[in-house]
């Protein structure tokens, strides 16, 4: 693609983290006045590449050139100065401040005499108004940004990116919270920007968007660039097969046993939050591993947190062993024999300042109570030691603080915590995230063993091989809806990807 002048060249960028080669000589060349789509599964390295562009990560090797000149980017401020800005997928507005203050944050227009300067609110208002008029947006500049809807905030973010007069704008899933009309508005803005010679890097999972607005598509997989093609030469099927087409390098334990009776039945479960899960129904059988696939934003986590009573449900039923249950708090779920391994191990899983022992027994303290409210220390310790040994947790002693263990061992302690509550149904949200390969296999073995014992497991995973390797069936979600349930033995990555990217417009 070196024929026409490239505005931005990222040349053979490599970046390694302990245990992973996140980027392996990735090259990305973006020409002025074009939309360049960057595609790949979760974890393919798209975000890491963009973080290198914004100086959040320093690449181990490789070079970034802008208009042919080598650029040394040490932080997002440098990036802005070089004419690169970004619209983030997650929004970080300062909620109580006005729309205009959010746009001009860090570069307020000022006036005054010499060193005596104050913020020129009138000019800020005028500039904001002009910017919005240009982009055909109808938002009052002086409203607190927190009072706007998520989609309007997204539009403000887009306007902010435009206001830098950048040469390169990165858009990370910009349409994820926009309505149909607003998407059209965004596409018009993108058209204008192209005419002005701006280069746009467009990250999205939505095939039809890509095929509609992209000029070129670069596909990444496992930290490598698979290739770059003109969008006109691509189809949805071609993109999907190139995104997932990899050999299975991970191994999975042999799964034996046939799922039994239905244990859990979820009927038309719907969240009170409009953009969250809607009308989800599925069954879970005894001894079954039900994988849950989907892209970021598919609301899988929200769904299983609702099953566990961490989120509220607006309508629908949860039927447990033939009996409808009302689960409003985690306590209710635990009493009904459920356990939840959360996605964010640090934020909602471990108690970093407490010992392995305390971390293990915390959900089942009632079990160890003796008369007069006292706790049976010996029994607590003995059960913890047994459980720790069974799951092969590597720790000097049960008195060691959990934060001194590796991620994989912390995860095993959390599994031990939930197994101690003697659950029938385990909800596992990304159980192997951030864990090294060896520990992953051990966790797979534990999951397989639990299923064999007759426990039912719902496992959310963003890793295709893991879903296919571990699941009896796979529920695929897209934007809050269940788009299909496929057989884990026969399904292909392409099939799952198609269901996960199915745009329910």
């Amino acid at each position: 693609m070196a024929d026409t002048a490239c505005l931005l060249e990222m040349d053979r960028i490599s970046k390694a983290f302990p245990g992973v080669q996140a980027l392996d000589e990735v090259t990305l060349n973006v020409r002025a006045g074009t939309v360049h789509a960057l595609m790949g599964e979760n974890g393919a390295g798209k975000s890491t590449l963009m973080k290198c562009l914004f100086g959040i990560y320093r690449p181990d090797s490789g070079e970034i050139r802008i208009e042919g000149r080598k650029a040394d980017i040490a932080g997002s401020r440098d990036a802005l100065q070089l004419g690169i800005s970004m619209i983030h997928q997650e929004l970080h507005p300062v909620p109580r401040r006005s729309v205009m203050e959010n746009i001009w944050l860090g570069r307020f227009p000022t006036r005054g005499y010499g060193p005596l300067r104050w913020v020129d609110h009138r000019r800020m208002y005028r500039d904001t108004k002009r910017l919005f008029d240009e982009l055909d947006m109808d938002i009052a500049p002086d409203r607190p940004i927190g009072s706007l809807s998520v989609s309007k905030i997204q539009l403000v973010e887009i306007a902010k990116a435009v206001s830098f007069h950048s040469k390169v704008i990165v858009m990370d899933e910009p349409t994820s919270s926009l309505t149909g009309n607003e998407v059209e508005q965004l596409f018009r803005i993108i058209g204008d920007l192209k005419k002005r010679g701006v280069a746009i890097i467009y990250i999205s999972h939505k095939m039809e968007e890509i095929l509609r607005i992209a000029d070129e598509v670069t596909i990444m997989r496992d930290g490598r660039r698979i290739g770059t093609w003109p969008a006109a030469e691509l189809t949805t099927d071609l993109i999907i097969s190139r995104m997932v087409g990899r050999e299975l390098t991970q191994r999975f334990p042999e799964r034996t046993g046939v799922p039994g009776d239905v244990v859990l039945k979820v009927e038309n479960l719907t969240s009170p939050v409009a953009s969250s899960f809607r009308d989800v129904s599925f069954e879970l059988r005894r001894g079954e591993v039900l994988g849950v696939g989907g892209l970021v934003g598919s609301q899988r986590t929200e769904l299983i947190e609702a099953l566990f009573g961490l989120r509220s449900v607006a309508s629908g039923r949860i039927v447990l062993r033939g009996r409808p249950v009302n689960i409003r708090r985690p306590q209710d779920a635990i009493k009904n024999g459920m356990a939840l391994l959360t996605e964010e191990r640090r934020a909602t899983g471990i108690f970093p300042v407490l010992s392995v022992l305390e971390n293990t027994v915390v959900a089942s303290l009632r079990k160890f109570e003796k008369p007069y409210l006292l706790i049976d220390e010996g029994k607590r310790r003995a059960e913890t030691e047994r459980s720790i040994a069974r799951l092969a947790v590597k720790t000097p002693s049960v008195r060691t603080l959990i934060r001194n263990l590796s991620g994989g061992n912390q995860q095993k302690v959390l599994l031990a915590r939930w197994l101690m509550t003697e659950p029938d149904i385990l909800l596992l949200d990304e159980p192997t995230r951030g864990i090294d390969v060896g520990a992953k296999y051990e966790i797979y073995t534990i999951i397989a063993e639990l299923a064999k014992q007759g426990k039912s497991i719902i496992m959310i995973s963003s890793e295709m091989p893991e879903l296919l390797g571990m699941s009896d069936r796979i529920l695929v979600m897209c934007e809050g809806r269940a788009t299909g349930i496929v057989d884990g033995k026969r399904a292909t990555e392409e099939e799952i990807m198609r269901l996960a990217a199915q745009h329910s417009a």
Partner: protein
Amino acid sequence: MNSARKVGDFATQYAIYIVLVALVAGISVWDPHFLSIETLRNILLQNSTRAIIALGAAFVLITGGVDLSAGRVVGLTAVVSASMLQMENYARRFFPDLPHLPLWLPILLAVAAGLIIGLINGLIVARFKVPPFIATLGTMVAVYGINSIYFDMKPNESQPIGGLRSDFTNIGTGAVGHGPYSVPYLVIIAIAISALVWVVFNKTRLGKNMYAIGGNVQAAHVSGISVGSNLICIYGIAGALYGLAGVLESAKTGGASNNYGNMYELDAIAACVVGGVSTSGGIGTVPGVLAGVLIFGVINYGLTFIGVNPYWQLIIKGLIIVVAVSFDIRKYLARR
């Protein structure tokens, strides 16, 4: 591990106790008369109510909160108990016509008052999600107001309450045995409370839940702990402990006024943090808190004993807080 590292680790692990021993040693070198059974007895006696307040404050700190109402609760319960335990023939009685009450009744009422204020604190924090600092700042101010209104009632009209019954003051001044080797009741009560609190911290579900809530409140919620009801319970216990301390203060001094206990909460928090309780929650032990109380006790008594200017004592106390905590915190700083 080499021996220098071992010594360093030992020092960080037991920093508080080393500071305590060093203080005692330092003062004794200055004046060898300091080391006596008399000194020990006095320091323990002076700090028994402080220890009870600090243990109450520790409950709240370990959950990751803070309780500013402690001092004012002490003042309230001192006044409440004293107002009902004056001698019948005393000239200026708070309730002139009050009959002779059994000793336990006013004490129970006062402790119950502390308990209720604690439960209110817990309710505000747990149900209305007000940050503990603000919630207890509010009750601290309001409780002083309530106490002052009570204290200002006719015929008392804000006169210090005196003439307390001897069976009551005996709790504060009496002792088991005689002479220098006698053990004051206050010290016995403080030791009993400490033992009880140790059991709650280490041997009960409430205690385990307290550490879990302070360690990671989200994870505690996911693990099925009723965070709200545990918090209400914990603030309630803390309030009851302050209440008891107020009663004992009144018995010890033989009087009470609405200014009793003023700023005791800060002394209690200082003792806790010097004793290794983490203000971000999840960490703290009973022996640590007691060592923290004793460090300040030794400073108060010892420096006065060797004749250090009281203003200098304040400066030294301030330094101790910062230095002790900066050492202690090294235990918990993760090696990155």
